[in-house]
């Protein structure tokens, strides 16, 4: 689904052509088939990949956090760009953004469900919750968020958006989705931040960092969605909007970088082992390339260059957003795993106290873990493709 700006005057919603739809659907099905065996192994053989008792969270939790950043960040940035920067060209992108958010959210819920030791006991979190735990808050807020987005999309689907009564209802949902989204991100940041046992996570700034990360990642995805699916394609407004978004995107990347640098320096400067060990693992550990090459190289440097030099070129904006999203996948993984991958101070002896492959601080995701992730991506892609075809496209065709 490459973005090719055409000079036609008539808006042409993306995926209304059978070829695009089929390609997207085929990709989703391939992803589902590729990942099916991994899911089978989790559900039937009860395997948990390379996770150990000392590194109990890994790739799946990282991908979950990434998808939540995307889903919430996209809705938040959409709201901010529309309300405060008055970017009118995004008006028609609302149902696309909502559908993309729901798709990401379902993928996130799937991948975190696979991470549970007893996935079919998930209902206990709803019926017997402990609201003293941030994880309960996360689950409830997530569900609430899913409900709000689904209700909004349903309203679009029913074409009731222009009926006054429904407009009030929709406005209410939109406004309520903003604080809930902010709260959800803060809660997920807090979920890690409150763990005093893990000094690398245990910082009051972590919820704020998650919030910034969510906004930047969401903005990257929103820019990409605009380039690929905006109903204003082919109009001058389409290009203007893209350039406006690129400018904001560039600023957001710079702010994100400054925030990360400040946080990193605060950890690195005192060089207290309990805190600095995690940072050292991120920067110089066995997976140093994920931060230096994937995140900082592809995810930050390339977009910065592209958006600084070719800021008005659509191909550059598109490439920058794709690079940023690809590079950003490594960020939550590089927060979660290094925080767990070393023994706590005074407990160093635990490393060699008892030998078993599941009692180690070494963690490298197994192939089946990647399969589960691909399956989750397949779910998201399938939901988005089908949703676009049968919900968004009829809406756009009817009203615009």
């Amino acid at each position, binding site marked *: 689904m490459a973005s090719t700006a055409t000079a036609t005057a008539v808006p042409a919603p993306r995926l209304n052509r059978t070829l695009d739809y089929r390609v997207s659907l085929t990709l989703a099905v391939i992803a589902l088939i590729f990942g099916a065996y991994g899911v089978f192994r989790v559900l039937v*053989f*009860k395997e*948990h990949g390379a*996770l*150990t*008792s*000392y590194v*109990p*969270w890994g790739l799946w939790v990282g991908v979950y956090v990434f998808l939540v950043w995307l889903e919430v960040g996209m809705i938040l940035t959409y709201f901010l760009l529309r309300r405060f920067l008055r970017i009118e060209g995004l008006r028609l992108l609302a149902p696309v953004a909502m559908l993309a958010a729901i798709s990401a959210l379902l993928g996130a819920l799937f991948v975190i469900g696979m*991470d*549970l*030791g*007893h996935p079919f*006991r*998930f209902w*206990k*979190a709803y019926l*017997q*919750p*402990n609201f*003293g*735990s*941030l*994880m*309960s808050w996360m*689950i409830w807020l997530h569900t609430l968020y899913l409900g709000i987005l689904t209700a909004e999309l349903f309203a679009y689907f029913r074409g009731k958006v222009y009926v006054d009564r429904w407009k009030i209802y929709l406005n209410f949902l939109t406004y309520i989705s903003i604080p809930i989204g902010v709260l959800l991100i803060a809660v997920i940041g807090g*979920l890690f931040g*409150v*763990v*005093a*046992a*893990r000094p690398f996570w245990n910082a009051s700034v972590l919820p704020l960092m998650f919030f910034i990360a969510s906004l930047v990642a969401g903005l990257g995805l929103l820019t990409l969605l605009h380039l690929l699916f905006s109903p204003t394609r082919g109009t001058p407004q389409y290009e203007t909007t893209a350039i406006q978004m690129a400018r904001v995107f560039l600023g957001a990347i710079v702010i994100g970088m400054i925030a990360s640098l400040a946080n990193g320096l605060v950890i690195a400067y005192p060089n207290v082992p309990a805190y600095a060990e995690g940072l050292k693992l991120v920067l110089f550990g066995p997976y140093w390339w994920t931060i230096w090459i994937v995140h900082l190289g592809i995810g930050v440097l390339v977009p910065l260059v592209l958006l600084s030099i070719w800021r008005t070129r659509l191909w550059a904006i598109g490439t920058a957003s794709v690079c940023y999203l690809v590079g950003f996948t490594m960020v939550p993984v590089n927060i979660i795993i290094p925080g*767990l991958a070393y*023994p*706590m*101070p*005074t*407990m*160093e*002896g*635990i490393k*060699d*106290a*008892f030998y*078993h*492959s*599941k*009692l180690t601080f070494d963690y490298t995701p197994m192939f089946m873990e990647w399969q589960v992730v691909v399956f989750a991506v397949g779910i998201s892609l399938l939901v988005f493709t089908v949703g676009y075809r049968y919900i968004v496209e009829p809406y756009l065709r009817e009203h615009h």
Partner: protein
Amino acid sequence: MKTTATPDPVEATGRTPVEEAPPEPEQAPASCTERGCAAGEKPMGRKRFLAQVASMVGLSAVALPSLVRAGLEAVADGRTEESGAGFLKDGPEFEEDEAANIIIRMQRELRKAMRKPIEQRKWVMVIDLRKCTGCNACTISCIAENHLPGGVVYRPVMEEEIGTYPNVSLRSTPRPCMQCETAPCVPVCPVHATWIRPDGIIDMDYDQCIGCRYCMTACPYHARTFDFGYSYTEGTPEPDQPYEKVPSFEYGKRWKQQKGRSPTGNVRKCHFCTHKLDAGMLPSCVTSCIGYATYFGDANDPDSLVAELISRGNKIRLKEEMGTRPRVFYLI
């Protein structure tokens, strides 16, 4: 109190004093070996040996009927070990000279504590690091008692080399669950699957646990392990041996190791052998310690051994700066 005396290897199973302390035969002089004795010492002759054997047999013959009778009466009254509460109420008292044996002393104190309401007990474990030899007997006995599968360990022994050659030493630190008073693992559980009992032990409900492992990240002692459903014989020609399928009795229930069913897929941790405590027995790690380095008891009882030990100045707790207030103390 003789904490350094080498006591008789008495199992804490409520045997009668007569059984616990059979009359010991006269010992040969310490200087005698299999090859002979040191000059000036008389070796044990055949007559003397036979006389001692005969006296032992005679004593046993006298003691045996009374032992059997006591046992039968106990069974008839429902005061067997398995009956737990009944045994605690009316169990035989140890004689005063047996108090020298710390295991027996702790056993008696345990039963005394079990007669109190649960909220009046405060279980505490004290580990004397000066006595710990790092033999891992406690680790193994814990695994055997709780039928722990591969990859699950409640009480590993951490080893730490201190100093540089030639001034080096080795410190072994057993690490059970600290049963913290302000346990960070408890409030993070999203489904109330873990909580602090009134007597201070951190309990778990395997059937409630969803396996999210948040509690594992929250524990500063790495004391929680996840049951991935491994078996010790996995990958061998004959996997899943029958002994691996024997259920454990943690938390007073039968837990069979079976994929997809609790406790597989759950977080697991040391619980001070609550199922044994309920039956009036000491935790496995305490009774199996070859160096008598682990003590257990009710800190609310001022006369208890553990209360005495933790009142000393040489006690420490792991990561005390975190304020978790562990109920496991170390003597250094």
